[in-house]
């Protein structure tokens, strides 16, 4: 048992810090720190800076042009990136679709699509959830019917994150209705400019346009955009979901969030003292900080196993549940800390306007973030689904 990082890992951390100090634009880190919504140009700019460094595709093998970082390196990156208020890397192309293409795609598909992800030529979004298929994803109803050299797609996807920016969508579609649900699903790559596709915004409860509905009416998709074999899409989808879970614990986000709570609570006065010195508030902060310290080590234990070749199974579900509980608790502390100044609706701030809202403790849109991050325990397999997995796997004695 040794809790210290190796010399190589320490050197890696220094490299990451130096890079972030030098290359992360202040305009971007200020936005992230203040909870201001990033636009497409912001995200493209950050991706481009990372790509120039060779650090955009962190999890890709070197043979595909990736950095091929191991799990500990990725963990160090996530800690440092969050501490420096770096924008998150948009995951849809890089860490969701790419691993599927690398494992199941044809050589032609790999050669065509992967470089375009790195350059930003393609912006991908995810077509999984449907109005009737959320937690029960395999019940999806969007159909793809073969017609010559094309599939004809009809149906509706929903909760499509950043779909308004995307030119490509990877979709789970039903290609066989007469078999067991999981056995009739295929994985299709669809150009968003194809006639018959309509993207409709969904405005979330904090007023933000982050997710969309995507409607398909007789959308013709070339058969070469089928990934792997027809009706094997569920296998690829499950493979993708395991990759969606890297950084599932969100340790870096929680650490940055906790630092932000303390900053607000040191500025906010409660009586004659800063709120941070109020015993009840300090106790709330301390409790979540102790939880985070332990979870951070849980995360590292699992990561070390993965780095040594072990596959995280039920542990990933545990990290999702605990990680989101902690992040949401930190969001709750931030809104508490802001006091009456949590009440103003900071929509202007979130859209990047210069009109400053009243805010003596510089808390920013903490209440909006509290509500927005209720999504953390809902998406990517709700916490109820994760608990079901933990119990099912553990009680049956294996996956």
């Amino acid at each position, binding site marked *: 048992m040794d809790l210290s990082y190796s010399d190589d890992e320490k050197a890696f951390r220094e490299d990451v810090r130096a890079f972030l100090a030098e290359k992360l634009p202040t305009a971007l880190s200020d936005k992230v720190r203040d909870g201001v919504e990033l636009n497409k140009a912001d995200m493209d700019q950050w991706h481009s800076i990372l790509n120039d460094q060779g650090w955009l595709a962190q999890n890709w093998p070197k043979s595909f042009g990736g950095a091929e970082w191991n799990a500990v390196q990725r963990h160090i990156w996530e800690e440092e990136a969050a501490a420096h208020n770096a924008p998150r890397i948009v995951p849809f192309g890089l860490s969701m679709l790419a691993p599927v293409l690398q494992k199941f795609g044809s050589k032609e598909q790999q050669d065509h699509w992967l470089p375009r992800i790195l350059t930003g030529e393609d912006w991908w979004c995810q077509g999984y959830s449907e109005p009737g298929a959320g937690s029960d994803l395999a019940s999806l109803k969007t159909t793809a019917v073969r017609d010559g050299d094309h599939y004809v797609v009809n149906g509706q996807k929903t909760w499509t994150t950043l779909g308004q920016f995307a030119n490509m969508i990877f979709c789970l579609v039903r290609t066989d209705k007469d078999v067991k649900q999981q056995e009739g699903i295929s994985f299709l790559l669809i150009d968003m400019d194809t006639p018959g596709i309509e993207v409709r915004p969904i405005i979330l409860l904090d007023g933000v346009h982050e997710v969309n509905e995507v409607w398909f009416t007789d959308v013709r998709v070339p058969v070469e955009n089928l990934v792997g074999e027809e009706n094997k899409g569920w296998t690829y989808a499950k493979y993708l979901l395991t990759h969606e879970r890297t950084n599932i614990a969100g340790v870096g986000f929680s650490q940055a969030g906790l630092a932000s709570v303390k900053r607000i609570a040191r500025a906010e006065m409660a009586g004659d003292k800063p709120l941070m010195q109020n015993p009840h508030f300090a106790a709330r902060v301390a409790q979540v900080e102790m939880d985070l310290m332990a979870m951070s080590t849980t995360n590292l234990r699992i990561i070390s196993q993965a780095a040594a070749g072990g596959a995280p199974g039920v542990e990933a579900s545990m990290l999702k549940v605990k990680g989101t509980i902690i992040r949401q608790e930190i969001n709750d502390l931030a809104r508490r800390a802001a006091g009456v100044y949590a009440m103003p*609706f900071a929509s202007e701030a979130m859209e990047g306007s210069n009109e400053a809202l009243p805010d003596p403790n510089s808390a920013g849109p903490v209440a909006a973030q509290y509500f927005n991050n*209720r999504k953390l325990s809902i998406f990517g397999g709700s916490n109820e689904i994760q608990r079901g997995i933990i119990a099912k796997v553990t009680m049956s004695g294996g996956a």
Partner: protein
Amino acid sequence: MNFDLTEERQMLQDTLRRFLRDKYDTQTRNTILDSATGLSTEIWEGLAELGVIGALFSEDQGGFGGAGFDVAVVFEELGRAGVVEPMLDTAVLGGGLIANLGDDAQRALIEKLIGGALHLAFAHAEPTNRYDLNRVQTSAAADGNTITLNGRKAVVVNAEAANVLVVSARESGAIRDTDGISLFLVPSDTKGLTVQGYPLLAGGRAAEVTLDNVQLPTSARLGPAGKAYLAIEARVAAANVALNAETLGAMETATALTKDYLMTRKQFGRPIGTFQALAHRFSDMLIEMEQARSAVINAAGHLEAPRDTREIHVSAAKNLMGRAGRLVAEESIQMHGGIAMTQEYELAHIAKRIVMADHRFGDTDHHLERFIALSAA
């Protein structure tokens, strides 16, 4: 013991519930939320016509209610419908202070208010006082027949719509002294008064109010000089009864929507409410809501009690509502899933009302500490 509503209050509840059910759906409210004023004059006048404002004042004040249970009945219905119109600010706070403290000339405003033709705001909180009612830095200096106000007031709800602001200011004493605080009626067009408005996350609008050498005649003072603190505390107690009842009403809507959703939404071939993991959590919501209902009854029933008894119940209720409200809001969203995160769905607004109530007149921790202090006294 009798926990039934009186016939009058039952009628008021029925009428108000029917009015809001007919007039105040999600789409109507979203239009109001997007509007420049953040409130509907039509709804406001409708509420006045129904006697809703009058129900918040006693007979000798020109109304026909005014007791804790009148306040609770009205606000539970406003909360159930997620109403964003500033009944709390205009009637309970502004109107209540004038009715309790005003001279004959000042109390003449109440008739207009009950008729729906006057808006008020209570400008008390300041940028660094968090939830302390006694911490007042805004100054009032009397010189002959003129009083001059200077200072800044924070997150003054309904300040833009208000025809008159009820402003607290210190005439004497140190920053935390309860003694030395006075109230003043400041018409919205007074020179030196600046109102910088913005929307609120849970609906309605507020403003930062700056008083820069605002000059008032002595007749603008509401009640005796320097002795307003206890009256403010008593009115904030009424405001907390109102806010707690409103939160209870919102929690009832949240649980009703969740129940419907659990019974109609199917995943894995069955209604999700048949999964025990969700069914038990729904039951916990109902259990906490009954606790909340009793806390509201306790606070409303002791609003006319002596100060210490009243305040213990106010703090107990506000602390419990903060805890139960958070549970109901978060669990309702979680059990709905994504749909509850969308602006179009009723629960999104209702959940915001519930959680953001924790940010007015003292949050869960503030009232925990206050309860401990009051219990020890």
